[in-house]
């Protein structure tokens, strides 16, 4: 079946530093989403991309528009509140069925 591979599985960042998370797809995908889950389980939507890039504050996401086989999430100037688990999810048929990656556990330290 379709697979979404996220890397790294865990990451520690010092405040103020930058980093990038990545999702590779085993097949061409139509769209990708990025989510963040906090320690209480609350999940928020960060980005939806069908192509190109999107930016929101210190977060920026890109979806490979050529082969559509990977997506990245860049975190700039990491803050303590960025800590959590980041999930990407991708769909290759329609836009209602998404397969999730295993997540990246991010800890931002002072």
């Amino acid at each position, binding site marked *: 079946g379709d697979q979404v591979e996220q890397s790294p599985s865990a990451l520690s960042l010092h405040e103020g530093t930058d980093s990038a998370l990545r999702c590779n797809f085993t097949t061409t995908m139509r769209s990708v989403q990025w989510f963040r889950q906090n320690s209480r*389980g609350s999940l928020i*939507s960060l980005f939806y991309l069908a192509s190109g890039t999107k930016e929101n504050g210190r977060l920026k996401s890109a979806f490979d528009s050529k082969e559509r086989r990977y997506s990245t999430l860049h975190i700039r100037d990491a803050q303590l509140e960025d800590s959590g688990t980041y999930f990407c999810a991708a769909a290759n048929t329609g836009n*209602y069925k998404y397969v999730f990656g295993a997540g990246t556990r991010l800890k931002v330290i002072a």
Partner: protein
Amino acid sequence: AQTIHQWPVAEIKAVGSPLSLGCTIKGKSSPNLYWYWQATGGTLQQLFYSITVGQVESVVQLNLSASRPKDDQFILSTEKLLLSHSGFYLCAWSLGTNSDYTFGSGTRLLVI
């Protein structure tokens, strides 16, 4: 303002007993609705989605069923719980196919 409410917040149920989890969305008409399941410490799995009232599509069943009896209500249920049903259940809504998803607070289920 749009709100999404999931109930119950948490449940402890016996194996073989029935289950019904609910999700209501207020403030938007005809939202797309979704159910997700997350094993403790694991990733998310999409279970069902519904584009319109009365129609539900299965993504991964896990011996569960879903129904959308009203435009603003999404129900997840089973007649016989399994130990493997334990986990965290999340409901979400979106407008259209390329808009952000809004999630409920989730229901923690422990099957014993």
